[in-house]
């Protein structure tokens, strides 16, 4: 009787174990299939597939918390004191906010040292002798920078000193070389990460004369790391899809 009892218990345990293995295997296969679908899908269309989107979101939330939130914040709104972009304003320095573009930034970074990253653009420090170090740009005097600031205010349709703005326009379109990155109309170039100077969205500071002067004089060159060695391809994809969705629906 005792032996029968042991046999029965053993069978039940073996069955439960077997069931657990089967369930675990099924879950692993299901997950693998989701990962495969995530990678094979068009990154920019994943948000239309509710199952895939839920999977991406579920995987991305802890990744964002662990890797991105320290800079972009838990509310995705960045930090203008540090030049960290707001991810919720749908205003993009690079590209147009598509998940595939965000994916590349996550993988290869911005001024990250990775050869595939966005490494081209940086803001020279015009109030410094080092402005010539990377590009043939002569430093500007404090007066030149103030004039340029006035010109930029006219692009934003804000009150400005007209005479100074005229001088600033010549600098912007001429020896300052500003137009080369920010475009002659000041609206920037998302192909190289040059911000739009004609809107009221600021990456640094608050758009005051002082903060714009500071930006021109001291330059900028923030960076976003290349996570290609820390993240798998599907993790980067999930994170990109998630961030793209947050931007459109903060």
């Amino acid at each position, binding site marked *: 009787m005792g032996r029968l009892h042991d046999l029965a218990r053993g069978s039940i345990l073996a069955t439960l174990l077997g069931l657990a293995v089967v369930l675990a295997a099924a879950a692993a296969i299901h997950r693998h299939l989701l990962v495969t679908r995530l*990678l*094979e899908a068009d990154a920019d269309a994943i948000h239309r597939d509710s199952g895939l989107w839920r999977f991406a979101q579920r995987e991305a939330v802890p990744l964002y918390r662990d890797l991105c939130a320290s800079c972009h914040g838990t509310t995705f709104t960045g930090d203008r*004191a540090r030049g960290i972009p707001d991810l919720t304003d749908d205003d993009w320095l690079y590209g147009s906010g598509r998940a595939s573009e965000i994916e590349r930034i996550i993988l290869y970074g911005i001024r990250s040292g990775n050869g595939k990253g966005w490494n081209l653009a940086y803001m020279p420090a015009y109030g410094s002798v080092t402005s010539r170090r990377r590009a043939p740009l002569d430093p500007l*005097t*404090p007066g030149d920078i103030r004039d340029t600031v006035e010109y930029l205010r006219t692009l934003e349709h804000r009150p400005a000193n007209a005479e100074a703005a005229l001088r600033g326009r010549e600098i912007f379109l001429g020896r300052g070389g500003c137009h080369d990155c920010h475009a002659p109309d000041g609206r920037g170039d998302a192909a190289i990460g040059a911000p739009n100077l004609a809107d009221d969205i600021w990456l640094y500071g608050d758009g005051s004369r002082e903060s714009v002067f500071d930006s021109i004089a001291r330059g900028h060159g923030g960076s976003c790391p290349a996570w290609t060695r820390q993240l798998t391809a599907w993790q980067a994809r999930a994170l990109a899809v998630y961030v793209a969705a947050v931007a459109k629906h903060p």
Partner: protein
Amino acid sequence: MTSGAILGLLIAGYGLFTAKGTALRRVPPEDAALVNQRPILMSDLVAQAESTYTLPFTELSRAQRKAVLASMIHEELYVQRGLELDFPGTDPDTRNALVAAVEQQAVADATTEVPSEAALRRYFEAHSAKYATEGTMWVQDLRAADPVAAQRAVATLRKGGASAQAIRDAGLTAAGPNRGEDFYFAAKIHLGDALFAAAKALADGAISDPVALPDGVHVLYMITNRPPVPRDFARAREEVLIDYKRDRAARLRAADEKYLYGKADIQIADSLR
């Protein structure tokens, strides 16, 4: 039992002598192609295709996508062939590119690290002078005929003010163009070290003591002087972070170098030791 052991040994032996490594027979979902098992990433294909045709990838035709993929496969094949031909050992351009890429890897590693606020603050405090605002000054550099005339001019201007007429009446002439307001670094270049040192100490409206230089005796009239002002950590943080990471990258490169040299077997010809 013996036959089982022999069978096991036979299987192991077969595996050992015919092993080719794990080969994928299906392209992984994150890749666009495998070239001799080396992946071409789908994300790279998307970026390359969009860059080539300046259209979103989804709007490209199959032919366009295949054309870009073909060019990437071509590149991969030739890279692999270059490795087989030992171009890193012989071709200067390849070698330069490899050196740059390896050095850049240290930058990538440094960029990925997120330093703590405490570490950044320590760095800032150790280098705080560097993060002050750039001072500005507007100074007139004047020259006197001789040291006696310079002393007389300085006394006159200090007593009666330094209008343009007074300067002329004191017998002083401009030693250089009136550049208006300059950043300190520019003023130092324009004035030279000795005159800049004298200028830095002047308040608005002040006249310097005569400064004798090889080209004559100079007197400085300071119109406005705005010395550098220390910035607080919050305002300087971005630059602190950039410098911190640059220093970190330099240390990583130095560590890489030490490691490479340490494990390398480098032998130098007698005549060059």
